[in-house]
């Protein structure tokens, strides 16, 4: 066993990954690059959402589970019941961005309280206009878009903004497909939505990210602010969970995961994410070494 990319040559077999649609582009990029190393390994990356991914992962249906939030207690229990042992690896960083329509020139920076006003379960049916968020804002109807309920993004956002996972007003447009959120936000002047930073960077004309005030002033999402931890509370790590048994017994899984961690920087760049800090990368490699 080694981590050398050259050893991939003779390996074959399949690697099955599922889970977060946010993380999927990372794993896909890794699979893409890995094909040059081990053309006979078949990597599939499905996108059931973080929660859906864990459900399959704990049913031993997948080798790797992509996650945009840490595994939950009930999911841990599920895996334990099934006798699945796993290892959590932070694979990249993301800034969960709050976006508005490009025409919107008033909401430059929103505090966590203001976001809670907009998105909290109590807002359902009552908070319908921007001026209810801040009286200086115009009387423009709110149109809300965001991640679907199966996603880690949803869990993470609701937890960070509304204080409880899954607690959110229901009269917004949830979608598992983030591009639909892009379409929605770009198509409505009063729109607000939340999604991964990559979408913001790729669609500068369609929407713009607002700065978030988590108590320490307004911070815009970017590689630096995420990596240095100032973009709170919406800066977040992204994970992959590796099935220990798969890693030990399937050489192609081991080769793939090793390759993935090794080339995280290129992978993150290709997938438009923020790479790991030195520290994070070292931790990841240590984790693998213990599995080795």
């Amino acid at each position: 066993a080694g981590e050398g990319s050259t050893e991939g040559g003779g390996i074959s077999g399949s690697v099955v990954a599922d889970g977060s649609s946010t993380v999927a582009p990372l794993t896909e990029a890794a699979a893409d690059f890995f094909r040059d190393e081990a053309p006979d390994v078949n990597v599939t990356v499905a996108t059931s959402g973080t929660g859906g991914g864990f459900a399959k992962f704990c049913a031993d249906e997948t080798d790797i589970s992509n996650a945009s939030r840490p595994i939950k207690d009930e999911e841990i229990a599920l895996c334990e019941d099934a006798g699945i042992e796993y290892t959590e690896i932070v694979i990249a960083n993301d800034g969960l961005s709050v976006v508005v329509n490009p025409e919107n020139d008033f909401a430059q920076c929103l505090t966590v309280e203001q976001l809670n006003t907009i998105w909290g379960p109590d807002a359902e049916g009552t908070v319908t206009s921007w001026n209810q968020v801040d009286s200086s804002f115009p009387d423009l109807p709110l149109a809300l878009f965001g991640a679907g309920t199966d996603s880690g993004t949803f869990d993470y956002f609701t937890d960070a903004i509304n204080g409880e996972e899954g607690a959110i007003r229901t009269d917004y447009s949830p979608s598992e497909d983030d591009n639909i959120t892009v379409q929605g936000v770009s198509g409505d002047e009063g729109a607000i939505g939340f999604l991964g930073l990559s979408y913001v960077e790729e669609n500068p004309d369609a929407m713009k990210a607002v700065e978030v005030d988590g108590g320490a002033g307004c911070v815009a999402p970017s590689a630096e602010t995420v990596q240095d931890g100032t973009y709170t509370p919406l800066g977040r790590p992204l994970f992959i969970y590796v099935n220990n048994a798969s890693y030990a017994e399937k050489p192609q899984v081991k080769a793939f995961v090793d390759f993935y961690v090794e080339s995280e920087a290129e992978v993150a760049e290709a997938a438009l994410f923020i790479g790991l800090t030195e520290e994070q990368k070292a931790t990841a490699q240590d984790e693998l070494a213990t599995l080795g």
Partner: protein
Amino acid sequence: MRSLQDSLAGAPTMPLKTGRAPGERRAAPLVFLILLWLSLAVAVIFLITLIVNIVLEGGSRFGLPLFTEYPSSSPDRAGARPAILGSMWVIGTTAVLTIPLGVAAAVHLEEFADRKHWFNRVIELNVQNLAAVPSIVYGLLALAFLTLVGVRDKNIVIGGALALSLLILPVIIIATREAIRAVPAEIRDGSLALGATKWQTTWRQVLPASVPGIATGSILALSRALGEAAPLLLLGALVFVSFDPNGLLSGFTTLPIQIFNWTGRPQEGFHELAAAASLLLLGLLLVMNGLAIFIRNRYQKRW
């Protein structure tokens, strides 16, 4: 009544050159005809707009890499190779599963079934009903079935083919029945009167004569299956596949799903790729429809 005299005078009481002012009665039919052409024109203009739109967006991406490259996180090096192969695998499997089954069912209903028997009446009603069942319901059915038989990864070629086969089976049965029905009774009578059995008549006379109709119907049904996304979505076919599918149990994705996937990406380059793949899919459908029309016109006998 006109008098005899008038008639004898050799001149019609009213000229045949319309006795009415021009335009008085001509306007309505003309407007009507224009409206008719307009309804067709709207549809055709729509189709053209759609195609032009796709060509404008994806035309530049329509090239060899689309066919040879694997999906990638970078739109510049991405292609639809696994999706194209996946579509071929799934549609091929669907064809192998459905055509013999559909033709056999149609032959039973058309040539052998006692139409008064409840069993056959129920089947007939069923076939008609199934043809109108939404495709997504077939996805639900396939999902439930695969779960029941304990398949873990539902996104396999045979699973997709199962969903699509059930979806187009009624279409093929109906098309085949029509083709069989178009074979004149005289041919059957001629064969039977010679002492041929019913099956001999079916196999040697009726089926050969209805091959063009069956082929036409099957191609059209398969082209429908080729464009379907919804049922496969339910089986989890929205995946990143970076290898060539290589068997019935292999994972796969298909062109429509790949298109759907790409349009969900943030990068504009993927949207262009999606348009290019749409172009490819449209081209394939055009070829299949063209083939069906060719067969229909060339081989279908006018009895």
